[in-house]
């Protein structure tokens, strides 16, 4: 009996030892899909080039803005406008990566909350006092606020008058410049964080836990696709969540003819990310993406190739969006059914990615801290 007792005791010793192993795993992943390579591809070929490119377009925008406020003319106005659009499009390629510094800065919202609060903006300008660091000003800054200041002040002549002979001309100029430099500062902060250490942390964080970089990236990607792209750019203005259409909620309301262009850019960024395609020919990508990850695990999907299904669904969504008017404001008021049709096709991929893809990858949506059984 004594022998027996010692024997059980040693079993418990084993338990204690086994528990000690809990989170100690910093080893290289060792299955047939290389998550390290996937993270390197995302970081080096998609995310960091994306921020670098956005930073370049923002510098152009800043120069153009400086030129415009020095001499507000229809020529300098056009220059600001075109560089605004170029950087807005560049932003669509990084908007989904709310990771690291971007997450703590609330980066996406700092740059792109719409509809922008025009009365608040006018209030700041007429009182000549504002602080863009305050959370309360989040709907008065970023691309939508610039959209208002470059397109929303009446005819081109009326707009130029505001910056030249208007009572608050200098305040308008300063607010516009502050909006641009704030976006620059935020972007540089995120970009330099990636360059100085975060990239290293990120690509080596191949843990399978919910704090692993793959889990987190897939979660922010899906959150972006569902909330910011599907709902924000299409569903909300089409009235999916309100019963009545809300055309005033389209992205780029004041220059309403680029809403579709912005959506197409965002969707193509989504598809590129899903397929692990590099940012440009300078960053061709290493072939690792969610598509190849799914293909590796394909034993799971019982014949049906999930990555193909998802890509096909993206094509269908593109086709539906192609049918839309350049201006979503006019599309919604003339034929909202087409807008809802585009929404439905985007929605199909929420299901394929959030339900099927996450199940195949065994990733928990929005990590839940609780026991299972």
């Amino acid at each position, binding site marked *: 009996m004594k022998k027996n007792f010692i024997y059980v005791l040693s079993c418990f010793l084993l338990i204690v030892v086994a528990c000690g192993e809990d989170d100690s795993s910093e080893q290289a992943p060792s299955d047939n899909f290389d*998550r390290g390579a996937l993270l390197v591809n995302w970081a080096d070929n998609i995310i960091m080039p994306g921020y670098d490119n956005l930073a370049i377009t923002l510098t152009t925008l800043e120069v153009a803005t400086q030129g415009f406020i020095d001499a507000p003319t229809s020529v300098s106005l056009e220059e600001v406008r075109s560089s605004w659009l170029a950087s807005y499009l560049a932003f669509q390629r990084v908007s989904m990566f709310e990771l690291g510094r971007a997450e703590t800065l609330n980066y996406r919202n700092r740059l792109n909350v719409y509809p922008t609060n025009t009365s608040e903006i006018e209030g700041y300008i007429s009182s000549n006092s504002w602080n863009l660091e305050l959370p309360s000003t989040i709907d008065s800054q970023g691309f939508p606020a610039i959209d208002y200041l470059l397109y929303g002040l009446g005819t081109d002549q009326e707009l130029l008058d505001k910056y030249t002979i208007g009572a608050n001309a200098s305040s308008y100029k300063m607010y516009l410049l502050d909006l641009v430099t704030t976006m620059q500062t935020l972007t540089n902060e995120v970009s330099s964080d990636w360059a100085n250490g975060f990239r290293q942390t990120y690509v080596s964080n191949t843990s399978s836990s919910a704090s692993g970089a793959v889990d987190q990236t897939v979660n922010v990607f899906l959150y972006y696709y569902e909330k910011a792209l599907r709902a924000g750019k299409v569903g909300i203005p089409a009235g999916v969540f309100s019963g009545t259409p809300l055309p005033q909620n389209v992205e780029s309301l004041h220059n309403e003819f680029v809403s579709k262009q912005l959506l197409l850019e965002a969707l193509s960024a989504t598809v590129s990310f899903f397929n692990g395609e590099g940012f440009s020919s300078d960053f061709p990508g290493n072939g690792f993406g969610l598509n190849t990850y799914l293909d590796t695990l394909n034993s799971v999907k019982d014949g049906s190739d999930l990555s193909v299904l998802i890509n096909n669904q993206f094509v269908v969504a593109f086709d539906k969006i192609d049918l839309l008017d350049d201006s979503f404001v006019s599309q919604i008021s003339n034929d909202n059914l087409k807008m809802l049709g585009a929404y439905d096709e985007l929605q199909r991929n929420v299901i394929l990615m959030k339900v099927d893809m996450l199940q195949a990858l065994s990733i928990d949506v929005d990590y839940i801290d609780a026991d299972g*059984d």
Partner: protein
Amino acid sequence: MKVTYNTYTTKQTKAAPLAVFRVLFGFMMLASIIRFWANGWIQTLYIEPTFAFSYYGFDWLPLLGNYTYLLFFICGLAAFSIAIGYQYRIAIIVFFLSFTYIELLDKTTYLNHYYFISCLSFLLIFLPANCYYSIDALRLKKIRAKNVSAWTINSIKALLCIVYLYAGLAKLNSDWLLEAMPLQIWLPSKYDIPLLGNMLQKQWVHYAFSWGGAFYDLFIPFLLLYKPTRSIAFVLVVIFHLLTRVLFPIGMFPYIMIISTLIFFNAHFHERILLFFSAILKRLSIFNRVSFLEVNRATNYKIAPYVVGLFITVQLLLPFRYLMYPGELFWTEEGYRFSWRVMLMEKAGYAQFIVKNTKTGTQFAVNNSDFLTSFQEKQMSTQPDFILEYAHYLGTHFKSQGHKNIAVHVESYVALNGRLSQPFINPEVNLLDIEDTFKHKDWILEFNDTIQGI
């Protein structure tokens, strides 16, 4: 028959196993409560949600807000009281009620092992677990005893055997055995576990774990009951539960099961454990000096065996209630809970609720995160009774906001064990027209595949 019953209920055995079980159970429960509290789960699971999913027939149970902490405190105090055997009978009743209350607060958090704790503590109410090695036994001469009726310890063994056996039976289906599902999904994602990570990628390992798990659950009760195999069975218990601990986030459950299976060892073994306790805390050697009556003469033996017998019978039958429902159990989950179906399937879903005005035809979609935590949303989207309860909640909410002629529909998709997602609930049905009952839910769409087996 009468004679057999009497012999069985009066047959005596040493009380030590029951005393050890009480002590370890009490401390494990105390540790569980502290762990739950320390993880901040009281706040995130029971206080933060604005809405709670109630069990059928328990929707009257009030949510306690910040008093939930008090409930946990009482539960923890009762657990400690059980461990030291002070006012045992009151303590175990308080523990059973408070623990079960916690579980009834929100079925989002349903886990088989919480249900197991409720069952076990209910059973313990009827067992004289304080007659030996307890403060009660020191204080009250009349309950002090070295021996108890054998059925008392056997009833705990019976409950454990049921848990294992039914968990094993539930695994006898084509997904588990022939497709190695869901382990084929779960195991590869644990690629970074030391030593095992590499192996977990291999398909034969998925099958080995599936079959091994099924065999383990089916045979471990017998290996524990049969004396020659008991020791080796306990090694298997430890290995099995530690593996599950390493692979899955299942909290205290592995330890609770490992500790519980000690009950299968004989009285000598448990007396050694008690000596071990005494050696650690020298004061406890008082138990070796006071005299104990040979036989426990507690009076509640009259009805206790009947209650326990009835309880075990219900436990044996309840898991089979699913047979009364048509359709695939994994899909409809009608009769799925309270049946020891542990880590049995991988289900993921998406539910988009649509609120319609039946007069004007206008409609809008609901943003679930406005009402539910992500945990609640995850549980809701794959379980019909959750979907129905939530739909009614939405109906009430939007009516109170002034919406009229409301109908609530849901467009939902569920993927089961790696199959492609398919529509789950009939989107044509206005869920407000439906009341939850135990009848078959014919508004669940048909599962377009077959899973063979029990």
